[in-house]
């Protein structure tokens, strides 16, 4: 949507906002930073993926990519990815997007009454304790009917956090109103959108861990010189660099596929691209986090040192939006079914088609 220059401005804006905030704010991830959220809302960042006609900022996934990378880089304690996904999901499903903070449920258990009241449990809701409404897919409906369940007094929160301290709550309700949207409007499920968002965040967080490691290696002295001057350390950091580059390329390409969904990119193409990107990002997390901690040694394992803010998120996000087994199985099944004769032509056809959007 935005041209390159506008996107760079958006990236710079997000970067400045998050850098200033993380310098001043307390860094415990579970502590949702309400003041920062208000600033982000003012800048239109959470509503980036909602069309302007529906009150959003009218951006696309390539715009979201730069914002989410900045959020991942600075490890901001905000439900930015979650709100972006939930708001776009509601918008494309034709549900009025509320102005409160939105999240989504990974699974739903309970009863949906004809009078549009839901009674049951919403599981794995990121930042659920702060959410004003939650989007979900109605269970037992294979076509995936999107729902938006409003937060009411009837809700109770069972608090859970991932290893990074980010809330991943269960919400229990005795009766809350819900809205119903169009089933599978663009062919992609919440899970797949989450995978793309996590890719962008992972690319940002890996970059931060790499930068911190390079800086540390340049100042930490042993045997009379900076450890970054030892070839053994340089080679490890260089390999870390190649993994960061791979994750970043994968995330950027997946976001581009999302931006061109329905316009050169089919839902099936997008699913392959998203799966490949999430899998590649997950692989990069392995090398990245182990090298970052190896270079930092003991200091990296302290609570007050900031490396953990990147690495704990990376370890958590590796399981969110599909882990290695989920995606490698899905991709493997698809590739085997198509066979050797189609592997290469499928691979090239996706990029050829994505390159020619109808404008």
């Amino acid at each position: 949507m935005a041209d390159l220059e506008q996107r760079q401005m958006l990236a710079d804006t997000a970067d400045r906002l998050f850098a200033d905030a993380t310098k001043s704010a307390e860094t415990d991830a579970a502590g949702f930073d309400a003041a920062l959220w208000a600033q982000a809302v003012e800048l239109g960042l959470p509503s980036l993926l909602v069309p302007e006609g529906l009150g959003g900022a009218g951006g696309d996934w390539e715009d979201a990519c730069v914002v989410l990378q900045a959020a991942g880089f600075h490890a901001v304690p905000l439900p930015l990815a979650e709100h972006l996904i939930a708001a776009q999901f509601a918008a494309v499903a034709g549900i009025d997007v509320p102005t409160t903070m939105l999240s989504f449920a990974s699974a739903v258990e309970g009863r949906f009454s004809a009078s549009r009241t839901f009674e049951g449990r919403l599981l794995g809701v990121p930042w659920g304790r702060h959410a004003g409404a939650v989007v979900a897919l109605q269970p037992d409906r294979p076509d995936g009917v999107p729902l938006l369940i409003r937060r009411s007094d009837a809700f109770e929160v069972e608090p859970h956090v991932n290893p990074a301290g980010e809330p991943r709550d269960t919400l229990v309700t005795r009766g809350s109103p819900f809205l119903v949207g169009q089933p599978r409007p663009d062919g992609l499920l919440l899970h797949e959108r989450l995978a793309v968002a996590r890719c962008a965040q992972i690319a940002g967080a890996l970059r931060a861990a790499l930068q911190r490691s390079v800086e540390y290696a340049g100042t930490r002295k042993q045997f009379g010189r900076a450890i970054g001057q030892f070839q053994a350390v340089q080679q490890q950091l260089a390999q870390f660099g190649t993994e960061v580059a791979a994750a970043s390329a994968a995330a950027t390409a997946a976001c581009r596929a999302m931006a061109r969904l329905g316009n050169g990119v089919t839902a099936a193409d997008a699913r392959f691209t998203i799966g490949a990107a999430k899998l590649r990002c997950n692989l990069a997390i392995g090398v990245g986090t182990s090298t970052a901690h190896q270079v930092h040694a003991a200091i990296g394992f302290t609570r007050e040192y900031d490396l953990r803010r990147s690495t704990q998120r990376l370890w958590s996000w590796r399981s969110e939006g599909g882990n290695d087994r989920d995606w490698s199985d899905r991709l493997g099944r698809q590739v085997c079914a198509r066979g050797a004769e189609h592997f290469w032509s499928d691979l090239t056809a996706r990029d050829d088609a994505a390159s020619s959007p109808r404008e």
Partner: protein
Amino acid sequence: MPTPFTFDPVDLPPGIPAFRAEIREWLAREMPRDYPSHQRANCWAVYDADFSRRLGARGWIGMVWPKTYGGHERSPIERYVLMEELLAAGAPVGAHWIGDRQTAPAILRYGTEAQKQRYVPAVARGECFCCIGMSEPNAGSDLASVKTRAERLPDGRWKINGQKIWTTLAHKSHLIIVLARTSPQDEKNRHAGLSQFLLEFGTPGMRVQPITDLVGEQHFNEIFFEDCIVEADGLLGTEGDGWKQVTAELSLERSGPERYLSSMSLFHELLRRVGPDPASDAVRQAIGRLSAEIWTLRQMSLSVAGQLARGEDPYVQAAIVKDLGNVFEQALPPLVQSLADAGVRLEQDSDFVRTLALLLQVSPSFSLRGGTREILRGIIARGLGLR
């Protein structure tokens, strides 16, 4: 973080799908369906002079060069697409690969008018094959320590003495660019005093001696120069600028799709062997992971091609793609071996086993040729600001 670690996606121009179809149609005619799979492996080391001449006649060597010198003035992205299609199909492109990729481009960049006219059109026709005269017995990764000497004679000609080694396809090539010392080594400026020379095979004083590789094939050689006389116009570019010229050549050498596709035919063989619905979770998941890696490497390689097409010099990015690509194409054969069902033994005679056995043995060279893993990671470390 410095920009070398970003890889922006490329938009391929609109004509690409049609061009791809044209290449595939041509390859289907030129490479029979029963073309052996193990010859599709590492195919840019497979010599087939006749294939190269047919490719040249089709206009697919020297695609981006000026028409004046036998080129076809197509775009760099079209050339990239041709490269990846030839490699993915396992076409035998070894004879002309070096000339097309780096020798003729170096001549076009640094050569005299006479040199361009003499060599470039012949390379484009697929008739002049080239090789790389960089490595020496004591100058591998440390290329600046080359000892081959070129001495200017009073009449302006040059006298070359020394030795090159690991020269791929020297015994079947017509032309070599030799990196030689033209002034004594200066320990304070090791990169100074080097120059490049164009030598035609058959020049008196030049002797090629084959070296058999570990699988018993002959593809690389030693070359000895004994008072080998080169005409004055054999100098390529500027005397003393050899290092700068060679470094530019290495950028071209490192960035292409050949740095991740060398084991592709084995991936295809694996897919054929396991069939459309493999029962094993391990096999399915490994195929999924390999597919994700191939997809990512292609995104990165395309991105570098886009940067080159815009006239940028993605020196660090090229090193990143080559390092990641080599790790991948090198890890693939042992992974496939570990996944193969119990019925596979390496003495068996099938496409799958022959391809696997060959790649198991030659893939260690993938992270040596064109810059070792250690050298590449040194370049990447410098890109990170560590050196």
